[in-house]
């Protein structure tokens, strides 16, 4: 057996090795320039929302806030964002998996996710990976009580929502000239619902409310029939219904109220659902009357007008609401931080978010800034009522544009 001579092209010579090392050195030397070039491009923002599943209606409503954002951010002189969509499917485990996937695909900042349970899971991933998360909507207080360094929330916590709701309720009762003496409290049994229910229990005594809660009724988030719950609530003969729900169950509750021929003096909601566009479209005249005590937009702010115009252009017939406003504001925080940081580096972005001070926003309150825990503790609730298929603002006085209608028109008299 003879040894085959090695071909000239396959031989590793000292000259080839030197040329290879030189090329490698050149590429390595160019790498910082590559990063600089990336930093000059759009910021990759992973937007996690429940676009399908039980909360799909609200998730898709939040998505409208994402859809109208690019043109408005550009008009405000803010840098471009590349939105990477992630669907949490209204499920905590999917939310966690999608957050991980978006980060692995290059997301440099996360926004989301409407639901407290899903947001809690995403916050853990963001913190673990060192990627900033700007929460659009989620009220469970514990999310910003964990000592997280990368998590920021421009939305009130449960106790803030409840505290503001009680103040606004007193304003509404005074303006209406009616005060309920008793309420029955119906709440969904998910992370948000139990957080609000806990907050009501702890916060209510401090506010000296004019009514008493005659019964608390918790129900399953996946409940498909709420007839027993409404029968139980009706049997209390309470003046008003205090409720924390989502969209699907808000519609189920309304259907049952109609079927069981019970119209309380007022429906006082401290959660989503009752003001949503889908609620109006599905229930028509039956949608009128409920008052929601929720984070809302200030109709007198300049940005509100801009958002309303953009929404009317892109989605004719859809009303501006919390979902779109706070999702847009989360992207506003991201773009503002990116502009000031001048880099996609997560730490630089996080530092920039921490020093956010946006006063030209849309939500009620003095503006957007974050405390040491990453919470915007200045954002305020409003009181809004469904009237003639639209949302009108009853409180706080600075943001109000009309007076309350009290009591609700009986469902049976609505034609």
């Amino acid at each position, binding site marked *: 057996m003879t040894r085959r001579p090695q071909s000239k092209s396959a031989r590793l010579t000292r000259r080839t090795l030197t040329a290879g090392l030189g090329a490698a050195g050149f590429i390595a030397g160019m790498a910082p320039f590559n990063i600089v070039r990336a930093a000059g491009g759009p910021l990759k923002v992973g937007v996690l929302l429940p676009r399908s599943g039980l909360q799909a209606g609200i998730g898709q409503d939040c998505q409208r806030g994402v859809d109208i954002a690019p043109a408005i951010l550009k008009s405000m002189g803010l840098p471009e964002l590349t939105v990477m969509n992630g669907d949490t499917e209204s499920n905590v485990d999917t939310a966690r998996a999608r957050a991980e996937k978006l980060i692995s695909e290059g997301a440099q900042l996360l926004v989301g996710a409407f639901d407290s349970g899903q947001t809690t899971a995403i916050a853990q991933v963001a913190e673990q990976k060192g990627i900033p998360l700007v929460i659009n909507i989620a009220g469970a207080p514990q999310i910003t009580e964990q000592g997280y360094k990368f998590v920021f929330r421009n939305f009130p916590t449960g106790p803030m929502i409840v505290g503001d709701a009680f103040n606004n309720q007193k304003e509404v009762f005074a303006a209406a000239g009616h005060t309920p003496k008793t309420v029955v409290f119906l709440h969904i049994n998910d992370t948000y619902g139990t957080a609000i229910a806990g907050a009501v229990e702890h916060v209510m005594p401090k506010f000296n409310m004019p009514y008493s809660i005659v019964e608390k009724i918790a129900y399953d988030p996946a409940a498909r*029939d709420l007839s027993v719950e409404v*029968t*139980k609530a009706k049997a209390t003969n309470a003046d008003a219904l205090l409720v924390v729900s989502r969209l*699907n169950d808000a519609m189920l509750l309304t259907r049952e109220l109609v079927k069981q021929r019970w119209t309380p003096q007022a429906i006082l909601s401290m959660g989503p659902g009752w003001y949503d566009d889908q609620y109006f479209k599905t229930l028509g005249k039956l949608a009128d009357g409920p008052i929601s005590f929720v984070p809302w937009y200030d109709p007198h702010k300049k940005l509100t007008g801009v958002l309303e115009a953009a929404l009317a252009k892109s989605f004719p017939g859809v009303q501006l609401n919390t979902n779109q406003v706070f999702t847009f504001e989360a992207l506003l925080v991201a773009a503002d931080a990116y502009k000031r940081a001048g880099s996609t580096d997560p730490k630089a972005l996080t530092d920039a978010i921490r020093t956010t001070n946006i006063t030209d926003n849309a939500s009620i309150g003095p503006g957007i800034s974050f405390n040491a825990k990453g919470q915007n503790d200045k954002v305020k609730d409003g009181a809004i009522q469904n009237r003639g298929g639209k949302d009108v603002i009853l409180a706080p006085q600075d943001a109000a544009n009309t007076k309350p209608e009290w009591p609700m028109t009986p469902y049976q008299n609505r034609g």
Partner: protein
Amino acid sequence: MPLEVYLNVAIGGVLTGLVYGLMALGLSVIFGVVRVVNFAHGEMMTVAMFLAVVLCSALHVDPLVLLVPIAAVLFVFGYVLQRGLINPFITRPEHSQFLLLVALAIIITNTLLIIFGPDARTVQTAYGFDSFQFGRIIVDAAKVYAGIAAIIFAAALFVFFRFTLIGKAIRAGADNHTGALVVGLDVKRLYALTFGLGAACVGAAGTMMTLLVDATPMLGPSYTLLAFVIVITGGLGSMPGALVGGVLIGLTEALAGLLFTPSAKSMFAFAILVLVLLFRPQGILGKRLA
């Protein structure tokens, strides 16, 4: 609480329980004759629910009008399924049957997810917000219609099994497999017919269920479990037992929601199951095995 509150809730529970009972009746009929436990039962019901949703919105008709056509479609589906897929597994060990039907359930759920997505879909009817008032008792109109339809469908099934030749032949095959073969009955065909009839029950129950709840692809496993709870409570293989079990579970869930907490409704249904298994393992109307 006033008496009418209990009556309102109890009537609603009984009416919902009748629809549950019809669904479970299908499971009971299949097991009673074919001796195969249909682990894809709830998923077949979601197929019927989506058929009802799609056809109602396309044809602008009431779900009750579609009750018989959808039951017929499910009958054909069940017949073909039994002849083509399940029949070869009848003599195989139970774990093989279990795996086959669980696989079928997963395939159905995921097919529905691919076609319709995970969102809830509903049927709009003219009486969607109606209720009947009898003094201080208020009853949901949709539940009344669904309950009446369930009784009529179940009665038709009883008549079929008791008074028709095919029904008698199916009962004979269930009672004595070898004897049925000896007298020349085509037992394989009878099994397929029975599976089809069980599927038709599910089709009718699913169509009526769209009046009461929104359809989502993920409903299947919970309805399969519910059907098992009902037939074991009522007596596995007993047709009247399935209806009685359905009504009992519907009533228990409703009253438990009223007397305790609504979020613990299912817990009480399982508590009934445990009690039945402890004190009457053959079920309320089931026959004790020799």
